[in-house]
């Protein structure tokens, strides 16, 4: 349904107007490019400001808010690194663990729904689908209590568990659709050769689902990276905060040395930028298909 509507077509295959393309830029083409650059300018402006101020002292900033001025104060970055590095390590730990463990849950479950029509499987399917309607906002307090009763307050494991549980429905939904596209003969042949479900998952499903799994992993990673209400509620110990929650804390406590703050923001952005650089195409694809399910 929705997923099909937003499916990305590979570049070059757009039902586009290749035939109409001419080498010469017409006035209207230039107008379009100018419009896009104007929008891009405003979208990138905050990033420019962040990077620019990250090299300044407050005095330099007050004299010259928007230009690059020398000397560049790299020590801002060193100080900021010490402020945010714990948060970054915590977040990477939570995000990696959550992403890896989630797939141990969702791939077998998606395989179950895609491959077998057993008694009760339709009911189970609706058991998952109904959760898509349930907004997270009402669950905040009870979840806090559950974690409290499990003695997981102030522990990164609570965040990992929440990451795993939160991603189940969407991932099972998308992975099921994907596994259903795999030719049935492959599984039948494997079964004749004596491969059980686990073998079939390891030898057939996983090797074939690299791109969809990476897309889902990236989306989940971004989700964990950006989440802050749950960490703020569950984590008391400053050393255990994840990044977004930690930045809120720094923003609240820190004497406003803008240079160091901005350097901290920049450092916080670098890991996601790195992932983006290496997985650009998956990113574009994942954002347009996965966001709809949000």
């Amino acid at each position, binding site marked *: 349904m929705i997923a099909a*509507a*937003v499916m990305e077509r590979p570049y070059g295959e*757009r*039902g*586009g*107007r290749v035939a109409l393309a001419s080498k010469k830029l017409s006035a*209207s083409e230039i107008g*379009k490019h100018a*419009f*896009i650059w104007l*929008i*891009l300018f*405003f979208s990138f402006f*905050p990033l420019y*400001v*962040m990077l620019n101020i990250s090299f300044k002292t407050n005095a330099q900033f*007050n004299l010259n808010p928007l230009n690059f001025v020398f000397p560049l104060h790299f020590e801002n970055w060193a100080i900021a690194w010490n402020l945010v590095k714990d948060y970054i390590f915590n977040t990477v730990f939570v995000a990696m663990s959550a992403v890896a463990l989630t797939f*141990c849950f969702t791939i*077998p479950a998606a395989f*179950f729904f895609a491959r*077998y*029509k057993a*008694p009760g499987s339709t009911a189970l399917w609706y*058991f998952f689908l109904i959760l898509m*309607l349930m*907004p*997270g*906002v*009402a*669950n*905040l*307090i009870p*979840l*806090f*209590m*559950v974690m409290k009763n499990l003695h997981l307050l102030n522990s990164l494991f609570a965040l990992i568990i929440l990451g*795993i*549980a939160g991603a*189940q429905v969407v991932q099972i939904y998308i992975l099921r659709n994907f596994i259903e*596209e*795999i030719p*049935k003969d492959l599984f039948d042949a494997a079964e004749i050769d004596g491969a059980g*479900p686990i073998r079939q998952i390891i030898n057939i499903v996983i090797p074939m689902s690299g791109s969809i799994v990476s897309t889902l992993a990236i989306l989940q990673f971004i989700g964990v990276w950006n989440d*802050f*209400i749950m960490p703020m509620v569950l984590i008391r110990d400053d050393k255990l905060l994840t*990044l977004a929650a930690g*930045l*809120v804390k720094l923003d609240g406590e820190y004497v*406003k040395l803008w240079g160091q703050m901005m350097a901290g*923001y920049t450092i*916080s*952005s670098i890991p996601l*930028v790195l992932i*983006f650089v290496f997985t*650009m195409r998956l990113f*574009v694809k994942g*954002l*347009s298909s996965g*966001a*709809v399910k949000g």
Partner: protein
Amino acid sequence: MIARKISVQRLPAYWYIYFLALPSVVAVSLFAYFPAASGMYHAFFRWNGDYINEFISFTNFSEAVHDPILWYGFGVIALLVAFNIVKMIPSIITAIVINRLKSEKSAYFYKVLFVVPMIIPGMVTLLIWKFFYDPNAGLFNMLLKGTGVLPLMCKVDSFFHWGIFINGVNPIWLGDANLVLPSVIFWGFPWVGVVGVLIYLAGLQNIEKSIYEAADLDGITSFKKLWYIELPLILSQVRINLVMMIIGTLQDYGLFLVLFGKEGGPNGKAMVPGLYMYVNAFVQQRAGYACAIGILLFLFILILTELNNRFVRIDK
């Protein structure tokens, strides 16, 4: 793939397949269904989240229905939704302009560029914007002073006697009861959400080349192209985004929590329902009441989702 049918008779040989789904079922039961059920249960209690736990039936709900702060919050949401609809337009226009580019290469190039601001962590973007609004160091006040807009606004102010802009005083955008909501509404200019742009682009790419060619032969203006070809074809995407936006506006209070904290901003001007729920639960120790607010929010969202499903179905 056609799923394999396992009949009840063959179940003894295949019982183990249920274990494939078991971990997910357990995870979802414990951390999604149980909290939801517990929240519904506790909405009927005077509960401080701990030892006070007393059944009071519908008192929480009747209190919520008559709570002026909650209704004010829903009013703020209605205002924000109205402006967010306007704020959807830049994304639609950007997607259409990108799609109309003749060069496939630059279309892809722009698409990638638009993703970049998106991968900056949301909290970083939020805090940079907060910095823009800072009364002393913020760029807004610098810009308004530098361009002479602020003195002008002060003159207009003294003419109408608003008392908002005063000569020689920097407006405290996020700390002034009169300026809070306008600041939040302007937040995130130019309001081009990359997710929105990519979704619209995916819809636009389904437009057949021949339709454009026919339109060109008929000498159609580009505004008519927009009105008769492009907008009708992305209508379902616009609807999806509209519903997602409304649901998101109803339930996301992260921005408000970071900017305005537990007081909900100056004079509680920015106390949205989600933030009010949070404050009741974690500041005022009224977890039962907070659960009731959560359920009201949930009902709102459910009704909106259902309305949307009806709309989309009629259209198709």
